């Protein structure tokens, strides 16, 4: 294949994948939603879950976006340095987003800061967001697709704590934020917690945490315990689906951490709403692909 045919093919696959993620929840989120529904005994919460499940059924049947807020598109790319389309990827993703915006259709959600003008294309300065990781010597490419909704982005926050505030302080920061802002962010939520050196490294870790499976468990024992404690505390809050009361409030809590300066601890929280539309697709150098989040995706 020539480079041009290559990039055209990848653009088409990505456009269809973006569209697919607007219409179908990831497999792990679907099964977690089912678990929470089964466990619920509050009649009002059950009524809300019924509408959610009916909505998912209709979205699939009518091929329409699950939520009218189809998000501000964010991509995290893990790309091998030998992947043939490395240099074309941003262009490929923009083109794919343009196609998906037209075809799905996605709502036009990009507004220029200060001028307040809606660009009308779902693109603009810094939009879509693209985060890069280069994998030296590899020839494959993984792409995470995350349409960040307005409501679900609202609880996001980061801070830098002193070492004496420590892990307890970090947990308190996350809890306070989610208890205050979570009810309006369409629970049940996936809560991403980032720990790191500074406010922005912690914030990016929190976003990475949202890109992991709802059931993932941090390999570090201390981090895994933090996930469990936060999950328990948030579920015991009784916030429930849509903030109107219920047995469970979160799909789960994921912690992602990186090393830090001994004198400070960056902590951040990010949340995904019940319509947690994250997609993950992996390409080899010949553009054979598979998605572990959407096994039914076909192209």
């Amino acid at each position, binding site marked *: 294949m020539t480079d041009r045919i290559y990039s055209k093919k990848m653009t088409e696959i990505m456009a269809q994948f973006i569209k697919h993620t607007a219409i179908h929840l990831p497999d792990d989120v679907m099964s977690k939603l089912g678990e929470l529904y089964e466990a619920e005994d509050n009649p009002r919460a059950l009524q809300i879950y019924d509408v959610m499940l009916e*909505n998912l059924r209709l979205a699939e049947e009518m091929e329409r976006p699950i939520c*009218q807020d189809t998000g501000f598109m964010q991509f995290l790319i893990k790309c091998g340095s030998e992947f043939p389309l490395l240099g074309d990827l941003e262009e490929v993703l923009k083109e794919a987003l343009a196609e998906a915006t037209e075809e799905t259709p996605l709502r*036009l959600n990009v507004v220029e800061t200060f001028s307040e003008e809606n660009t009308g294309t779902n693109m603009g300065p810094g939009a879509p967001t693209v985060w890069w990781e280069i994998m030296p010597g590899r020839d494959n490419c993984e792409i995470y697709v995350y349409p960040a909704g307005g409501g679900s982005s609202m609880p996001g926050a980061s801070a830098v704590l002193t070492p004496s505030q420590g892990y307890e302080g970090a947990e308190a920061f996350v809890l306070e934020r989610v208890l205050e802002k979570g009810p309006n962010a369409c629970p049940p939520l996936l809560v991403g917690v980032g720990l790191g050196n500074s406010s922005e490294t912690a914030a990016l870790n929190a976003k990475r945490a949202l890109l992991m499976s709802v059931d993932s468990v941090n390999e570090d024992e201390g981090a895994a315990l933090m996930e469990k404690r936060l999950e328990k505390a948030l579920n015991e809050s009784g916030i429930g689906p849509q903030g109107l009361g219920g047995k469970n409030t979160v799909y789960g809590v994921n912690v992602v951490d990186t090393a830090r300066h001994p004198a400070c601890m960056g902590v951040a929280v990010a949340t995904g709403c019940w319509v947690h539309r994250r997609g993950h697709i992996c390409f080899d150098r010949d553009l054979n692909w598979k998605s572990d989040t959407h096994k039914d995706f076909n192209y």
Partner: protein
Amino acid sequence: MTEIRDGRRIIKEPVTTEDIKDLKAGDVFYYSGEALTGRDAVHERVVVDGQDIPVDISDKILLHAGPIVKRVDDGWECFAMGPTTSMRMEDFEEEFIRKTGVKIIVGKGAMAEKTEKACREEGCICCVMPAGCAVVGAACTESVLEGYWTDLGMPEAAWHVRVKEIGPLIVTIDTSGRNFFKDRN
């Protein structure tokens, strides 16, 4: 006008004080009739800029919603519509209620003291409908009558729609000002 059918309470346009005065925080109903969408920018135009709301909504409902609409030959089609975070409108809602006379506001999540006060004094209720359920919302939307203030962009424009049995709408602030998010039991 209120109708009870198969155990379902349905409020129909025109909405009257009689329809909403006995509803309590936590009660559930459905709505049929005309509605207008309005988010941050619509509230700002009415409250800050002093512009007249393009549709008289004193007997209809206000939806805190930014739908996905598609141009079709002779107008618009509602493709997806669900509520947005109501709290963003809290700073404007009291005056918005007083200016427009709207009696039912539908959105997502909690609102706060200023809205409670206006609900109590003006006879208005706030409700939530399950959010993230935009296809259910679109399926309840019979037609898009007109798009006003489309210069604000698709999510922020004021869409005049006709809906049929949209819901379930759960009352979160009633006409006594009681707020379900604060007093849930």
